[in-house]
């Protein structure tokens, strides 16, 4: 991967970007930047505007307001230039199912302007990277869901891009395959590839992202390293209580009176910043289970929404 000039500015800059679809505002005055060599996790529930943001970056949808720059190129004006050096791994499987694994990569090796003499090597190393070398000549329809997702990733990496967009890279995959893909993304990260990854899996963002941007209703409501976001918004520990609604209501009232944030999770109430709760309050609250605070707590506090 090429090392960009130090003074090149961020790999991605969105400033005041608005995108409407009819009466729906999918992206609402979005400001976001991603520095070279970092992984930014875009965290938000379905409908938060993550996929629209991705499509804005590839020029596949045009903003109504605001400016976008990708790898130093204004988008959509010079989107094709930017797309030359970026790889896109879509949420939706759009492989050519009639073609083989290798043929899918061949087409994109050509599209990404890899010189003819170097295409074979590029495709071979992309196949090796995602562990599909022995399935190179299988038809896509004969691959498992996990293999197809790996092939999608290989397709986005065949030209060794400077920037990779991963849209919900592990959605719908079983835990074992998810772990494999996390290992792969982690490897890219250590190679210094800039990654923008949207996800609604908290664990994915915590494990892989240097920085997390929490998105809700088309804008970023919080941004920072996972641990910073935790300590800023949710502290380190939470006390979780189950019980009849009136008891949960009592707990909420007590906690709030003491200045501690709370959140409802279905049949339970979590009292956050439990580490700073006075012993008397903990006694008054009753018996709850102590757990570590998570990004999900941060997310719910900030947006009032659940992730899944």
């Amino acid at each position, binding site marked *: 991967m090429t090392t960009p*000039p130090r003074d090149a*500015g961020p790999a991605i800059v969105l400033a005041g970007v608005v995108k409407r679809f009819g009466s729906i505002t999918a992206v609402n005055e979005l400001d976001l930047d991603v520095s070279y060599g970092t992984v930014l996790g875009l965290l938000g529930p379905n409908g938060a505007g993550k996929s629209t943001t991705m499509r804005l970056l590839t020029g596949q949808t045009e903003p109504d307001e605001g400016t976008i720059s990708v790898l*130093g190129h204004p988008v959509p004006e010079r989107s*094709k230039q930017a*797309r030359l050096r970026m790889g896109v791994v879509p949420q939706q499987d*759009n492989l050519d199912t009639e073609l083989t694994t290798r043929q899918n990569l*061949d087409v994109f090796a050509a599209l990404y302007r890899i010189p003819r003499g170097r295409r074979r090597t590029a495709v071979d190393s992309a196949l090796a990277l995602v562990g599909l070398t022995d399935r190179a000549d299988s038809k896509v329809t004969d691959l498992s869901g996990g293999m197809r997702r790996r092939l999608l990733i290989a397709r986005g990496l065949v030209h060794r891009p400077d920037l990779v967009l991963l849209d919900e890279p592990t959605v719908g995959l079983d835990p074992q395959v998810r772990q494999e893909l996390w290992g792969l993304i982690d490897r890219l990260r250590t190679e210094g590839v800039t990654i923008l990854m949207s996800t609604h899996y908290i664990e994915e963002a915590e494990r892989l992202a240097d920085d997390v941007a929490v998105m809700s209703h088309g804008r970023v409501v919080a941004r920072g390293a996972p641990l910073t976001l935790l300590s800023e918004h949710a502290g380190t520990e939470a006390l979780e209580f189950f019980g009849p609604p009136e008891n949960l209501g009592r707990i909420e009232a007590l906690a709030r009176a003491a200045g501690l944030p709370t959140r409802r999770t279905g049949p339970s109430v979590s009292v956050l910043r439990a580490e700073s709760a006075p012993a008397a309050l903990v006694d008054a609250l009753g018996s709850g289970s102590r757990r570590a605070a998570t990004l999900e707590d941060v997310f719910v506090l900030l947006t009032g929404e659940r992730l899944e």
Partner: protein
Amino acid sequence: MTSTTNSPAPTAVRRYEWVAFEAIWVRELTLFRRYWASSTFSAIIQPTIYLLAFGLGVGTLISSVDGLSYVEYVGTGTVAMAVLFASAFPGMFSTFVRRTFQHSYDALLAAPVDIEELVLAEGTWIAAKAGVFGSIPLVVTFFFGLTPTWGMLVVPFVAFLAGLGWAYFGMWQSTVVKTIDAFTYITSAVLTPLFLVAGTFFPISNLPPVLQVLAQLNPLFHCVQLVRDACFGWQPLADLYHFAVLLAFALLMWELASTGMRRRLLA
């Protein structure tokens, strides 16, 4: 920190780049290797059946049409039909399936391919196939007694041009319909009636004047005329007119297909 001073390598960004075009054609060729046999089979068998039915069947009742033997008349007329089948149908069905079910175009547009390149590459690919498959009936007609002439070498190009228009007609329609079933209406209400006023199986001069005027608006009619004149003798002025109509049809459909695809894919 202006981005202009340190932009990455100055790669040419033209509206139409050969490499994008080439890659899409390579993809199509790879796909084509999987279905060429069935396409070629039907491209040969269909005109054969028409020639047997009309040429040998109806042909025994008709000695000549417009100075041509009926086999020559039908053989050349079938070219237009083969062109229509090889272009309008892929234009409608393939582009619809690829856009809505397979999302192939989304994948291409996320790579350095612009929508104009995509539309041009897909349209010309279908037209090229129509150029080849559209000419097959002529070859089949040789076996029914058609005499080869030098002018026939122009037929693939006529078939390409007409095919381009129909391919873009289909692509445009694929951006208009909501479901794939709606193509049934287009096939039965638009494409089938066009045969009536195209002069494929019988001359339009026998039709009521209204239909004769309508024929002038039918690209299929102009395709048939151009193919016949290429085979049996040019009529410069008339042929220039037929060519101009086919060209205008292709350009208009190209524009409509491009607008539709942009609307559907770059929302």
